[in-house]
């Protein structure tokens, strides 16, 4: 019979299989189960409508950020086009639902697949390019997609955008923050599960090998172009699913939000959260979304107090400034992000009182 494992006080692994386990301890397994139960059973009932809205936004962004972390953190391909891919997801959901009348349950994965194909197209330069050059290629992709979204009017509705129908699953209408909460977080849990397990397969390990040394990876027989494209596809799939959910949640979509700024926001999430770490992507999303909402709240409060009469304090520049500052400070002082902070805090509890 398997004994319960609580706290390994050293590395006692004797088989590779043990290295690959998702949970190091049964304690971790217990806590994640408790976390999921609390998330679904308690959070939506105690949250105010506004808070629930923020929680939903966090869920959507977390899916997209997770996808970007697979590309940037695990495969080492820096993409500045993730915001545009997110937009492609939202738009393809809109087009599939409105023009072709496909039901919600099929639209979300289909939007992900469409985005995956678009992502692979913009990943083709990775066959010849890497590092800086690839980053610039994805930057170009961002601008081209943005242009197409606005100017391909017969399909995307131009500046008018698309209005999505109210979704329903097997006849049950999904409307309001509460029902969206369940849809978004059910998807998010599946996506996190997928990402965790993808990294344990040969594909995920090939991604990491490419990140660490692409020439050595090729020497070991990994067809790096194919795997880089696959990484682009997986990452865009995540962005597409998140974009589709976002489109349904926001009801009407225009090309406005999907700018380079959004791409930078996603990169900021994974850099602040921790590159190459799945909890990191989630921490970063929570951090950035709360920072956003906190700043909105702060500017509103200051404006209402009238303390700065005559000074036009606008939200956007301040937000941009604080964003930049957060990125810079994290890179200078904790480049491994919040995931590392979390690890340090945890291990200092674990090792107390003999923390050496």
């Amino acid at each position, binding site marked *: 019979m398997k004994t319960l494992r609580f706290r390994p006080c050293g590395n006692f692994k004797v088989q590779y299989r043990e290295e690959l386990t998702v949970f190091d301890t049964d304690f971790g397994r217990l806590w994640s189960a408790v976390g999921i139960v609390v998330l679904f059973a308690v959070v939506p009932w105690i949250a105010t409508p506004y808070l629930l809205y923020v929680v939903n936004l966090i869920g959507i962004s977390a899916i997209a950020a997770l996808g970007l972390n697979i590309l940037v953190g695990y495969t080492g391909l820096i993409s500045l086009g993730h915001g545009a891919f997110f937009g492609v997801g939202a738009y393809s959901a809109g087009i599939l639902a409105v023009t072709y009348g496909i039901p919600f349950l099929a639209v979300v994965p289909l939007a992900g697949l469409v985005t995956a194909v678009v992502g692979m197209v913009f990943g083709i330069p990775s066959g010849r390019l890497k590092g800086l050059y690839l980053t610039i290629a994805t930057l170009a992709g961002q601008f081209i997609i943005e242009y197409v979204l606005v100017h391909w009017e017969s399909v995307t509705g131009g500046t008018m955008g698309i209005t999505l129908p109210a979704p329903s699953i097997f006849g049950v209408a999904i409307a309001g923050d509460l029902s969206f909460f369940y849809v978004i977080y059910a998807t998010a849990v599946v996506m996190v599960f997928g990402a965790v397990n993808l990294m344990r397969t040969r594909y995920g390990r090939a991604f990491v090998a490419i990140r660490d040394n692409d020439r050595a990876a090729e020497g070991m027989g990994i067809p790096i172009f194919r795997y880089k494209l696959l990484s682009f596809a997986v990452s865009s799939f995540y962005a597409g699913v998140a974009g589709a959910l976002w489109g349904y949640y926001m009801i009407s979509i225009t090309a406005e939000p999907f700018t380079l700024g959004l791409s930078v926001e996603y990169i900021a999430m994974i850099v602040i959260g921790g590159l190459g770490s799945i909890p990191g992507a989630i921490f970063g999303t929570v951090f950035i979304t709360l920072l956003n909402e906190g700043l909105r709240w702060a500017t509103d409060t200051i404006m209402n107090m009238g303390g700065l009469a005559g000074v036009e304090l606008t939200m956007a520049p301040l937000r941009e400034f604080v964003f930049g500052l957060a*990125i810079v400070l994290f890179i*200078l002082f904790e480049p491994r992000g919040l995931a590392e902070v979390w690890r340090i805090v945890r291990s200092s509890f674990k090792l107390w009182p003999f923390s050496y």
Partner: protein
Amino acid sequence: MDFFIQLLINGISIGFLYGLSAMGFVMIFKSSSVLNFAHGEILAFGAFLFLALVTWAQLPIWLGFLVTLAGSFVLGFVIERIFLRPLIGELLIYVIMLTVGLAAMFKGGMLLVWGGNLYTYPDFLPEGLGINWGIVQVPPVYVAAVIIGSLFLLMFGLFFKFSSQGIYMRSVADNQTAALSLGVHVRRVFALSWAIAAMVAGISGIVLGIINGITVHELSSVGLKVFPVVILGGLDSIGGAIIGGLIIGLLETFTGGYLSPSLRDVVPYIALVFILLVKPYGLFGLAEIERV
């Protein structure tokens, strides 16, 4: 025909400005291999500093110009010292993200101070500078742009060819380790190249501000348009930056003139993708060859 010539002239002048903006960018990349996403913001900073000096502080034009140059020089130096120095030898993504973060910071800061409004400089260029030969009409600003651009190109050419600092910078660009072992002060070279690059950016900011007026958004977007230019010219070639700038400028104005004005802003990036697919190291860039 008139239209064609006018477009040609516009394209060349705008291309020259792109080239000038790209020059500073290339200089940073050449010496320290840092891809600077904050270049547009440094450029905008120069333009706004000049604006503040000329309109608010009422300095004479030439003094304002010199102080702007000095200010941008110091800005570049400070950026390198505070933000980039700790990251020497770090992963590429951190360096890129740092400059992206800096760009957001500067942009937000400038928007907080100056807002998104359009400003213009007081008119100070002499009317006689313009060229007016029948169908060929060039506004004075463009002539000034070409003169300033050529002047600086010449100066940089001489600087890199003959001055000892310039030769150090080339040696660092060529091989950092070898330069270090031969006694070149690599860190000083990094600082100097950032400072000079910021100075060039400041100058191009002023010139762009004279032509299009000064807004934070417009000027900082030039920093992104630099990418097609430098990729076409080759990331590490200063002359290539000018030629790349000319080609991209012409491409942009002709697309805007003959095809559609909305396509104008995106055509450099479409070109960029094709260049990257066909000839990723540009016209004059050094090809990095890797074999397994």
